[in-house]
């Protein structure tokens, strides 16, 4: 690792709130998308001449199509309840990373052009003209929000900064300033079907390799079927599961579960991506287009069910938005949840005693669980509110004898984002990612010291990649982070006794 040009925050065990340090992260901004990456998504390639007009038109448009925007922009009373809730503020002290201040970047322009008070008395109400400096601030600070919704938990009006960030990014992309990382990835999904640009032959090859690996490892013919028409279940996983560590161990875990359940399943080469970065850039059409591939694949393969692998924002899109985006799912079996999370799937099989877990297999570990932001605050599992917290823990307790939770103000609905969500999982934002991870690292360090925790399980591809990268900055091993289904897979009792 090359020496970074920033300092990793000190671990303090308890979460202190930093003093306001204006401009602390003013230098942080991701690479801007090239023309080709913009145009592939239907956005202009570079800053348009009449950008101000286009931006205000877009804002006007969004104000008419998303109720959240006028309500959120009008309602904030600046009470300050959110100011110490964002992991990026806690990690950086930059006041523009306080949720309300992040919203104010857009709110001040909204007031200037769309409200009576701001038109006539701009100074009084903090209204601002839309200038290139404002646009620059939008680009910087709307890419220092991971759309994790933690602020929305504490806001007396439920103002969700993620909605504001999405609107900000959509306006930026519409005038020609998109983010390279997200837009390039969305383009790959449109063209090839997954974030990595992995074509079918490469994917088939990878899956063959996994079959061999598992066979060598445990002597069981666990299959990783691809494009198998007539299978019962289409499994949609984040493409990182195909080869990134520790993701791939999760994929092996799902495969073992399917193998042991006897339920036929398949992956799809056309829809080989659960992730949907359309949500990150706030653009409905792109989000829908990405999701559409899954509907198409499910229909063509003739499956009865869709199960989604471990990926946080993907689960939010699948659970909360798919039915709107690509529904109705009248061609699937209504006896099962549509879509179903792989944790729900495994949990159901466990409760029906179709699977058996031998927790001793993980006795060498003391495990904690990182609730992923999008799963926690933007979705559900099971049939009761909060099932998204209960089911993964049930699985972990079944798969491990040693499970401990981190402190309650950092778990469940209060969970901290890993620091890499929302389209920020890119090395041009490394400083932000490391600093933004500090609240989670503090809570983790505490259970390491108090409980001897050795591993942290996650159910999100972004969390897993992010932690692998940032754990070493905090003096922890990158292999501390594991897939939940790796632990399940390791504890699963297969027919041959493994």
């Amino acid at each position: 690792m090359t020496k970074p040009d920033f300092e990793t925050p000190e671990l303090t065990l308890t979460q202190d709130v930093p003093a306001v340090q204006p401009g602390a992260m003013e230098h942080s901004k991701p690479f801007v998308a090239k023309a080709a990456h913009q145009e592939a998504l239907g956005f202009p390639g570079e800053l348009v001449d009449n950008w101000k007009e286009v931006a205000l038109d877009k804002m006007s448009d969004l104000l008419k199509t998303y109720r959240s925007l006028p309500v959120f922009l009008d309602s904030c009373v600046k009470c300050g309840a959110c100011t110490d809730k964002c992991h990026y503020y806690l990690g950086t002290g930059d006041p523009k990373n306080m949720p309300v201040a992040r919203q104010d970047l857009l709110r001040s322009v909204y007031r200037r052009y769309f409200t009576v008070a701001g038109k006539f008395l701009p100074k009084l109400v903090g209204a601002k003209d839309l200038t290139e400096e404002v646009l620059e601030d939008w680009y910087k600070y709307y890419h220092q929000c991971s759309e994790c919704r933690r602020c929305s938990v504490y806001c007396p009006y439920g103002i969700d900064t993620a909605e504001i960030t999405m609107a900000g990014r959509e306006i930026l992309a519409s005038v020609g300033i998109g983010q390279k990382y997200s837009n390039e990835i969305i383009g790959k999904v449109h063209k090839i079907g997954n974030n990595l640009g992995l074509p079918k032959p490469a994917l088939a090859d990878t899956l063959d390799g996994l079959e061999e690996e598992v066979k060598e490892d445990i002597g069981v013919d666990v299959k990783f079927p691809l494009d198998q028409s007539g299978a019962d279940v289409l499994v949609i996983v984040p493409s990182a599961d195909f080869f990134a560590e520790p993701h791939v161990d999760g994929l092996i875990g799902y495969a073992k579960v399917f193998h042991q359940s006897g339920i036929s399943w398949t992956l799809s080469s056309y829809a080989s991506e659960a992730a949907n970065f359309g949500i990150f850039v706030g653009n409905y059409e792109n989000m829908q287009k990405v999701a559409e591939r899954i509907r198409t694949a499910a229909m063509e393969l003739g499956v009865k069910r869709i199960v989604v692998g471990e990926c946080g924002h993907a689960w939010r899109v699948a659970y909360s938005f798919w039915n709107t985006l690509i529904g109705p799912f009248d061609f699937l079996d209504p006896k099962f949840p549509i879509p179903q999370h792989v944790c729900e799937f495994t949990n159901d099989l466990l409760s029906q005693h179709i699977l058996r877990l031998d927790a001793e297999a993980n006795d060498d570990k003391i495990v904690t669980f990182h609730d992923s932001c999008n799963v926690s605050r933007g979705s559900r599992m099971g049939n009761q509110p909060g099932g998204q917290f209960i089911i993964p823990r049930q699985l972990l307790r079944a798969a491990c004898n040693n499970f401990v939770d981190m402190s309650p103000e950092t778990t469940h609905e209060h969970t901290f984002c890993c620091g890499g969500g929302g389209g920020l999982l890119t090395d041009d934002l490394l400083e932000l990612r490391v600093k933004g991870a500090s609240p989670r690292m503090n809570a983790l360090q505490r259970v390491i010291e108090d409980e001897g925790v050795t591993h942290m399980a996650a159910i999100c591809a972004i969390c897993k990649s992010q932690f692998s990268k940032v754990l070493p900055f905090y003096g922890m091993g990158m292999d501390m982070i594991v897939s939940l289904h790796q632990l399940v897979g390791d504890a699963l009792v297969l027919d041959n006794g493994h």
Partner: protein
Amino acid sequence: MGIIFSVLFYAASVLFVVALGRRIFKYATTPAPLVIPTTPAPMTWLGVIGRMLREVVFFESLFKGNKWTWLFGWLFHFGMLIVLVEHLRYVSEPVWFWVASIQWLGPYGGMAMFVGLAGLWVRRLVVDRVRYISVLSDHLMLGLMVAIVGSGLVMVYVFPTDIVMVKSFMLGLIKFDWQPLPSDPPVVVHLVLTLVLMIIFPFSKLLHAPGVFFSPTRNMRDNPRERRHTTGWRSDAHPEK
């Protein structure tokens, strides 16, 4: 004096009702295209009503967020509720029994408002994060409320005004039979500033009052798998398949 105030009262009331009504109409008619409740969220309308009640009665989310802001905010708002009910005696004749029965609470409500406002203002000035996000209008709004509450308390404890005359003025407004108003400074200040408050209400952050009811993260059900939610856009980007 009575006539000028009567005209101002009508003007402010019309503006308040029309402008606020337009804003509420805008909130009510703008679609919420995607299911975005902050989860865990209730799955039924009954559950949503419960969540909303906890939010507007107990300030549940704010309680999770910041105990001091919650305490001062709650004192202020519930002091205000008491004072508003207490003030209904100026527009009811004979005074409704439930209004009469809480009259003794009125001054305490006023004091709770005062303490709440003072606490919120101190936070705004002292906590660096809250100071950073405050603009002039945030301070002026607190000043306005403090002046309204203060002038009210002054009338209760220091310079009592002719409240029989105030009541006949208020009843006169309702019956379009305009009556004179006492010209003591506290009552004039109290009423002028209340009119100012009514006028700025629909154009300011006071819109949080109707806004909270339309907040999609609080008023949507968590049932996207069970029931298909549609965008509500006139030109739906995705045709039914």
